[in-house]
C-alpha cells in the first residue's frame, strides 16, 4: 500500500451566511495518485480544498499532511508544507511577464535587484522538466488560457509543491488543450507528485484519475477506485439517482426568422475588434448554439444584441426593427429576454430577497400594482408560483438570494426571464457552475420554449451543452463566425474543436446560412 500523504478528518465548515458547506467530511489521499474530487456545484468540493490550502477557516476537524498536523494559519503555511493550488480563476498579474509571475514573492536577487537572468533560467529549466513550455518573457495578458494554466502550474511547482490541487482545470480549455494538460498531469504523477483534481466531468475523471471521492450536499459519499467503476456508478453517487446526461427532444421545426444579425462589428474599449462582420438568422423553433473558446466574441455577441454593450455597428433586426442602440427596456418590451453569463453581477442582487429579484423586469407593469402602490398580495402570489414552478429551493420568498446555492440562484434568474414569456431568449452560459439537477431542469425549460416556437440563442463554453441542446451551431473564433452547422447532430466535438481553435474555417459564410 502506498504512503498516505493527506488526511482530512471530520471537517465541518459553516459560512457566515449560515450555509453549512462541509459536514464532517473525511478525505484521504495517497502519495503519487491522481485523486478526483467530484460533486455537483455547491457540494462543498471547492470549500474543502480552500480549507486544505488555508484560505478558508474551518469550524471542526483536523488536517494531517505528511504525518504533521496543519493549523489553519493561512496559505503561507500550506505552501511551505508543500501544498499548491491552481484556482479556477487564475491568480496572475496580467501586466507582468510570465517569469515575473512565477517568481513573485520568491525572487532570486543580486544585491537589491531582481536577478532576472537566474529567474528566467529557473523557469525554463522547470518547464523543460515537466514539459510545461511557456516563453518566460511573454506578458501574461498576451498568452492563451491554456498557457496561463501552465504558468499557474509552474508557479505552484516552483514553490516546491508535492500535492497539487487543481480546481476545475479543464473548464476553460478546448478538447485539444485538455488532452495536453492530461499528459502533463501524468508526467507529474510519474515524478511522484500527488494531484487532487476537482471536476464534475465524469469522462475526464475516468480517463486520468486513480481514485475518486464523491461529495454531495456537503458530505463525502465515499472514495472508490476508478478501475472497475462505470460512469453511471459515479453519477448516481453524485446526485443520488441516475442522471440522463443526454437531452431528448423532438426534431426541430424551424419557422420564420425572428432575429437577423447583419454586418455586426464591435470594437471594445481596448481597441480590440471583438465582433467582425457577424451575420446570421435565428428562427422560431430553433436553438442556435454558439460555440467558441472563451473570449472569442461570444459574450460580446450576446451582450451587444441585448443592449448591454454599446458602440457596435451593423444591424440587429427583431421583427424587422433594428434594436441596436435601443435601451434594454425597449429591447425587453419587444419580447427579448436574457440570461447573463455572470449571474452575480448581472443576474441577481445578492442582498435582495427572492421576490425582489423575481419582479425586477416587470415592476412597472399593472399586474404588480394596485393603484399607485405595489401590491404585495399580487407580488407574493407571483413569487410563490414561480418558486414552485421553477423548483427554487429557498426558505421563503423573503430569503436573500445570496444565501441560495448557485443552482438555485440561477433558477431565480431563469424563472424571471422565462416567465416574461419572451419570443427570443438569449441564454449566455445558462448552466455554468450549477449542479446536474438544476442543469437538467434548465435544459428542459429551454427545450419547452423552443417547442412553443420561440427562438433561442445559446452561448455556451460547455461543448456537451452546445451539442446536446442545440438544433444548429455557430462557431466563433477571434470575433468571426467560422462555421455554421444547420444540423447540430452532424458535427462532432473534435470537429468543433478544430473550428474553435481556428485550424479550420468554412468559406462563404457571408450570410450565415
Amino acid at each position, binding site marked *: 500500500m502506498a504512503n498516505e500523504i493527506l488526511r482530512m478528518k471530520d471537517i465541518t465548515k459553516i459560512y*457566515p451566511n449560515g450555509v453549512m458547506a462541509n459536514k464532517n467530511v473525511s478525505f484521504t489521499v495517497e502519495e503519487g495518485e491522481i485523486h478526483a474530487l467530484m460533486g455537483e456545484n455547491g457540494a462543498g468540493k471547492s470549500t474543502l480544498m480552500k480549507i486544505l490550502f488555508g484560505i478558508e477557516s474551518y469550524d471542526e476537524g483536523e488536517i494531517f499532511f505528511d504525518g504533521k498536523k496543519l493549523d489553519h494559519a493561512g496559505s503561507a503555511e500550506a505552501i511551505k508544507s508543500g501544498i499548491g493550488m491552481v484556482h479556477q480563476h487564475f491568480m496572475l498579474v496580467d501586466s507582468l511577464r510570465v517569469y515575473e509571475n512565477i517568481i513573485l514573492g520568491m525572487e532570486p536577487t543580486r544585491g537589491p535587484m531582481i536577478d532576472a537572468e537566474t529567474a528566467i533560467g529557473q523557469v525554463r529549466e522547470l518547464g523543460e522538466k515537466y514539459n510545461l513550455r511557456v516563453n518566460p518573457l511573454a506578458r501574461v495578458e498576451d498568452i492563451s488560457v491554456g498557457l496561463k494554466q501552465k504558468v499557474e502550474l509552474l508557479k505552484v511547482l516552483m514553490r516546491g509543491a508535492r500535492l497539487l490541487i487543481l480546481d476545475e482545470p479543464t473548464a476553460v480549455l478546448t478538447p485539444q488543450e485538455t488532452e495536453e494538460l492530461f499528459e502533463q498531469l501524468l508526467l507529474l504523477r510519474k515524478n511522484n507528485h500527488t494531484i487532487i483534481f476537482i471536476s464534475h466531468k465524469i469522462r475526464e475523471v475516468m480517463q486520468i484519475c486513480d481514485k475518486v471521492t464523491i461529495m454531495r450536499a456537503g458530505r463525502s459519499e465515499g472514495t472508490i477506485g476508478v478501475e472497475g467503476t462505470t460512469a453511471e456508478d459515479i453519477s448516481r453517487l453524485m446526485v443520488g439517482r441516475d442522471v440522463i446526461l443526454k437531452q431528448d427532444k423532438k426534431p426541430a421545426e424551424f419557422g420564420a426568422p425572428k432575429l437577423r444579425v447583419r454586418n455586426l462589428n464591435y470594437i471594445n474599449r481596448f481597441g480590440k475588434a471583438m465582433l467582425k462582420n457577424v451575420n446570421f438568422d435565428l428562427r422560431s423553433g430553433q436553438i442556435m448554439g454558439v460555440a467558441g473558446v472563451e473570449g472569442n466574441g461570444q459574450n460580446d455577441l450576446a451582450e451587444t444584441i441585448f443592449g448591454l454593450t454599446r458602440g457596435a455597428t451593423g444591424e440587429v433586426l427583431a421583427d424587422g426593427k433594428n434594436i441596436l442602440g435601443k435601451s434594454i427596456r425597449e429591447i425587453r418590451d419587444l419580447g427579448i429576454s436574457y440570461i447573463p453569463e455572470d449571474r452575480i453581477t448581472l443576474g441577481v442582487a445578492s442582498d435582495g430577497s427572492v421576490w425582489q429579484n423575481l419582479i425586477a423586469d416587470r415592476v412597472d407593469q399593472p399586474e404588480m400594482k394596485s393603484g399607485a402602490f405595489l401590491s404585495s398580495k399580487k407580488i407574493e402570489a407571483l413569487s410563490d408560483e414561480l418558486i414552485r414552478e421553477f423548483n427554487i429551493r429557498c426558505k421563503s420568498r423573503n430569503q436573500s438570494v445570496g444565501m441560495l446555492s448557485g443552482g438555485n440562484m440561477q433558477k431565480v434568474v431563469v424563472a424571471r426571464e422565462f416567465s416574461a414569456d419572451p419570443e427570443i431568449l438569449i441564454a449566455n452560459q445558462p448552466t455554468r457552475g450549477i449542479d446536474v439537477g438544476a442543469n437538467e431542469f434548465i435544459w428542459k425549460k429551454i427545450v419547452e420554449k423552443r417547442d412553443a416556437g420561440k427562438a433561442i440563442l445559446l452561448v455556451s463554453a460547455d461543448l456537451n451543452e452546445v451539442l446536446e441542446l442545440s438544433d444548429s451551431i455557430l462557431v466563433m473564433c477571434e470575433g468571426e463566425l467560422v462555421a455554421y452547422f444547420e444540423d447540430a447532430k452532424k458535427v462532432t466535438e473534435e470537429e468543433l474543436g478544430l473550428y474553435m481553435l481556428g485550424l479550420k474555417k468554412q468559406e462563404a459564410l457571408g450570410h450565415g446560412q
Partner: protein
Amino acid sequence: MDNKSRVRFEIMKTALAIGISLVLVFIIIFFASNEPLKAIHSMLAGPFTSLRRFGNVIEAMTPLMFTGLSVTMLYRAGLFNLSMEGGFFIACVAATASAVMLNLPAGLNFMVAMLAGAAAGGLASLIPGTLKVKCKANELVTSLMLNYVLLYLGLYIVINFLHDPAMNANYSYAFPENMLLSRILPGTRINTGTIIALVSVVFVYILLDKTAFGYKVTMIGQNSRMAEAAGINVGRIIIMSQLIGGMLAGLGGATEMFGMYKRFQYQGLPGYGWDGVLIAIVAQFKPQYVPLSAFFLAYIRIGADIMARQTDVPSEIVAIIQAVVIVLISAEAILKGYQRKLVVKQAREEEALSNG
C-alpha cells in the same frame, strides 16, 4: 440568518454600541470632573427635569429627522454623498430670500418660501447626481466640494441682498410675523415643523417601501448593473433620488428657519447634513427608525448642554459618544463571535431538521 434574527442582531448591536459609548464617556467624566456623579446625572436625567428642556430635545430632533431622511433616501440608492449639508444651507438662504423679498399674501408667502427651500435643496443635490450619471464623477467628491461653493454663495446672497443694516452681524431682515410656524406646546418652542418632519417620515417610508419607484431605488442600491440589465432606467432613478433627497434636506432647512429663527443667522454650515449620516446609520437606512435615531442624538446633545451648564464638564464630550456609536455600528467585526454563534446554531438546527 433569517430576517427575525437579523433584526434582533442589529438591535443588539445598536444597543451595545450606545451602551459602550456611554460607559466610555462616564469613565472620562470620572477622571476629568470634580463632581462626576452630578455630571452624569444631569446629562442622563437633565432633559426630563423640565418641560422646557424636554421641548429642547424635540426642537433639536426636528431638523435631524429631515437630513436623516435625506441621507436614507440617497444611501438606499447607493449614492454615498453629502449633498444634504449644502442643500440644507442653501435652502435656508432661498427660503429667507423668498420670505423677505416677495410681497405675497400671508398663506401663499409661506407656501412659496417652503417650496423655494425644497427646490433649492433639490437643485443643489441634483448637481452631483447629474455629474455622476452624465460624467461618471464620484458623487462623494463633487458633493463635498459643492458644499463650500454653496456656503459662500449663500453668504454672498445674504450679505449683499438680504442683510439688515440694523443688525451688527451678517443677519438678514426679520421674517414677517405670519411666516413663523406656530407653537404647539405652550412652555416650549415645539412647533408644527415637527409635524411636517413626521409627515415626511411617513412619506419616505411609503415611497421607499410601497412604490415601484422605491423598489427600483433599493435594487439600484443593491446591484445597479443587475437593475440595468433588468430594464430599469438607472440614470433616471439616480437623478430622481438625488432630487428627492435634496428636497427633503431643503424642506428641513426652510422648516428650521421658520420654526426656530426670526431671521437668517448662520455664519457657516450648520452641520445637520453630517448629523443626517449618523442618524441614517443608526436607523439602519430605514425611514421608520429615523425619528427614534434623531431623538437619541437630540437627547444626548441636550443632556450634554445641561451638564455643561451645571457642572465642569464641557458639552463637546457628546462628540465622543457620536464617534464611538458610528464606529461600533458600522464596524463589521463587532459582535462577530455572537453573530457566528447565532449562525452556527441555526445551521445546526436546520441540519437536524432536514435529517430528522
